[in-house]
């Protein structure tokens, strides 16, 4: 049997002749020489280890760095925290920045585990210098909420709690399939903050402060069973019975939780208006094919109106389908978004596969304007007469300006993932680097050659953070729309002996 498996694998994964290309090794060694020469030519100075500029842009770096210093000097005169007023974004030549090194301890550092101090859970960028961070203790100690008011120069511990799973690596990513909990909601004045976690002292819990972190309340979530660790595609997250736990907070007071229903064929949806101190059962929502509120993403943009995006990885028939509610989540109606401009793509001469749009995220900027982000998927065969999808295609966006009643035609976008700062200002990554748009995706401007980061979080078109990494978090902060990035100081230090790949 093993031989048959080997044969089938060999056949299915045969790269064909001359692979890798016969010149691959010589090209690689040439690239290595080039890299070595470039690193020898680099100037000294303090620079994050994973930001290694290319030689060709050194001169531009020096010039623009001066401009940035001036800009930051001006910034320091601003004393009022919060959203910064409109500022022009520099449009000078993009700065090359080599990709950050994503450290992955999951496969390489089991022996080093004891040397790790803390694990990141979530970062929430609230205003240009105010950041909330939640970190687990790698050694099994408490989880802690930290806050900084000065862009990471100083961090203050706000609250902590025991966490039986604190030493398990988790994800800081924000993809639709990642943990829907473990996120922070902050009020506009920065005094109120609410954090939902799967692992509080009461089990799945809410931590809430209304005095800027001086005092915290802790409330349990209305669940029939406490979360357990679930792993999917090498990422672990808490859930009840597969993906089954959702939480969404519209603000620091009003939120919804969806959990497995007391009847197997329903989801229970609970609602709170007092930061989780009290919950009411809003409805038992029947599960039907392609619709299970625990499998996907929920987004409310008012107390009554919201959208649910089903998880297309479980069911390709729900591509381009969203469900909307106007009664706070008690009932949901399906809506199918417009067709993609292309129905199929040619993968080789005269061989076509279908292409479909799968929704990966929805975001509302207010109660009217919102955007749905899709990742198109390409067919790769059939099953039971229906096409199956396994490849990835370009990203399309749908926009609404009437609270989701009507959606625009799909608009092809060059970047993914995208951080949608507001209805017009978006920042995202392409294969060649970081790009931005100020007109809702009509035109894009290359900002910098920035390597892979799992997540961006911009509070306005200029100020943002980006991060990547699992057991070791690497985060950077920008004050000029992504042209320049500085390493973000975190409230703990990783031991220098840590070696990961």
């Amino acid at each position, binding site marked *: *049997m093993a031989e048959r498996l080997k044969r089938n694998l060999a056949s299915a994964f045969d790269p064909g002749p001359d*692979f890798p290309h016969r010149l691959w090794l010589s090209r690689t060694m040439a690239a290595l020489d080039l890299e070595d020469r470039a690193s020898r030519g680099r100037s000294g100075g303090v620079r994050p280890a994973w930001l290694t500029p290319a030689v060709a842009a050194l001169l531009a770096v020096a010039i623009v760095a001066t401009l940035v210093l001036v800009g930051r000097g001006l910034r320091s005169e601003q004393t009022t925290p919060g959203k910064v007023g409109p500022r022009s974004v520099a449009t000078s030549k993009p700065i090359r920045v080599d990709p950050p090194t994503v450290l992955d301890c999951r496969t390489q550092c089991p022996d080093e585990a004891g040397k790790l101090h803390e694990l990141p859970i979530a970062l929430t960028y609230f205003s240009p210098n105010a950041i909330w961070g939640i970190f687990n203790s790698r050694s099994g100690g408490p989880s802690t909420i930290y806050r900084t008011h000065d862009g990471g120069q100083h961090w203050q511990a706000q609250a902590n709690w025991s966490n039986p799973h604190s030493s398990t690596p988790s994800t800081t990513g924000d993809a639709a399939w990642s943990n829907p909990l473990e996120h922070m909601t902050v009020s506009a004045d920065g005094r109120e903050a609410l954090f939902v976690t799967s692992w509080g002292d009461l089990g799945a819990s809410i931590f809430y402060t209304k005095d800027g972190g001086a005092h915290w309340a802790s409330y349990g979530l209305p669940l029939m069973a406490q979360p357990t660790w679930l792993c*999917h595609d090498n990422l672990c997250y808490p859930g009840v019975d597969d993906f089954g736990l959702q939480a969404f907070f519209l603000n620091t007071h009003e939120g919804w939780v969806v959990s497995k229903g007391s009847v197997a064929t329903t989801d229970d949806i609970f609602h709170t208006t007092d930061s989780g101190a009290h919950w009411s059962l809003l409805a038992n929502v029947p599960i039907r094919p392609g619709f299970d509120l625990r499998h996907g993403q929920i987004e409310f943009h008012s107390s009554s109106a919201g959208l649910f995006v089903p998880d297309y990885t479980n069911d390709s028939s729900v591509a381009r389908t969203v469900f909307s509610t106007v009664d706070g989540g008690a009932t949901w109606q399906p809506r199918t978004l417009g067709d993609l401009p292309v129905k199929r793509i040619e993968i080789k001469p005269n061989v076509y596969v279908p292409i479909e749009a799968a929704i990966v995220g929805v975001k509302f900027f207010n109660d009217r304007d919102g955007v749905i982000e899709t*990742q198109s998927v390409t067919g790769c065969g059939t099953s039971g007469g229906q096409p199956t999808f*396994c490849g990835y295609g370009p990203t399309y966006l749908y926009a609404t300006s009437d609270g989701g009643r009507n959606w625009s035609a799909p608009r092809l976008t060059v970047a993914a993932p995208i951080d949608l700062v507001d209805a017009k200002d978006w920042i995202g990554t392409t294969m060649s680097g970081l790009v931005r748009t100020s007109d809702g995706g009509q035109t894009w401007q290359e900002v910098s050659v920035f390597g892979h980061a*799992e997540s961006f979080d911009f509070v306005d078109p200029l100020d943002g953070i980006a991060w990547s990494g699992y057991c070791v978090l690497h985060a950077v902060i920008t004050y000029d729309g992504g042209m320049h990035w500085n390493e973000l100081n975190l409230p703990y230090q990783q031991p220098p002996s840590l070696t990961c790949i």
Partner: protein
Amino acid sequence: MNTVRDTGAGGASPLGGIAAHSGVRMANLAEQELVAHAKAGDRKAYERLLELSTRTASRLAFAMLLDRSEAEDALQDAALRAWKRLSNLRPGSPFQPWFVAIVANQCREVRRGRWWQVVRVPEVTRAETIDEADWLEGEDLRRAVNQLPFDQRAAILLHFHLDMPVDDVAIALGISTGGVKKRINRALKRLRPAMALSEVKVNG
């Protein structure tokens, strides 16, 4: 050094039998010499190490990414990354599983960040006529493997596709041999519908 062979790819050493065993021992000694030289900055030694691991690593990269061009790029990025981190390779540790782990992680990064581009379904080797049933079967297998969690996918490809012993897979994935077997068994359970396999033995 010419006796060094890519013992991780294809499994059966062309030296065969006792000679093969001896060859492997010589290979390990020679490999350690190469590693030592490479750590000291000897590019030729590093090139030779890459050469010895290219077949295994490239097959893994292709199996993970299903795109020849992307796989070559990932392989190159991994080679550059490994060169920079060569000092992290513990003395006496084999080069290939360590390098394969870097390739696997590089492929994972590519997969994470690839949603801006179309992933092409790989060319079918039978060029002129496509046997629909076979093509779909192969594609079904590719899809099934592709949908496995990373560690299970890596374990199944390293062990069954690249013929790496479980011990080496354990080194590459940074887990115990028991952990490797668990992942392989979990993966096989999920592959069975596609593979129509009732039982597959994991060879330690």
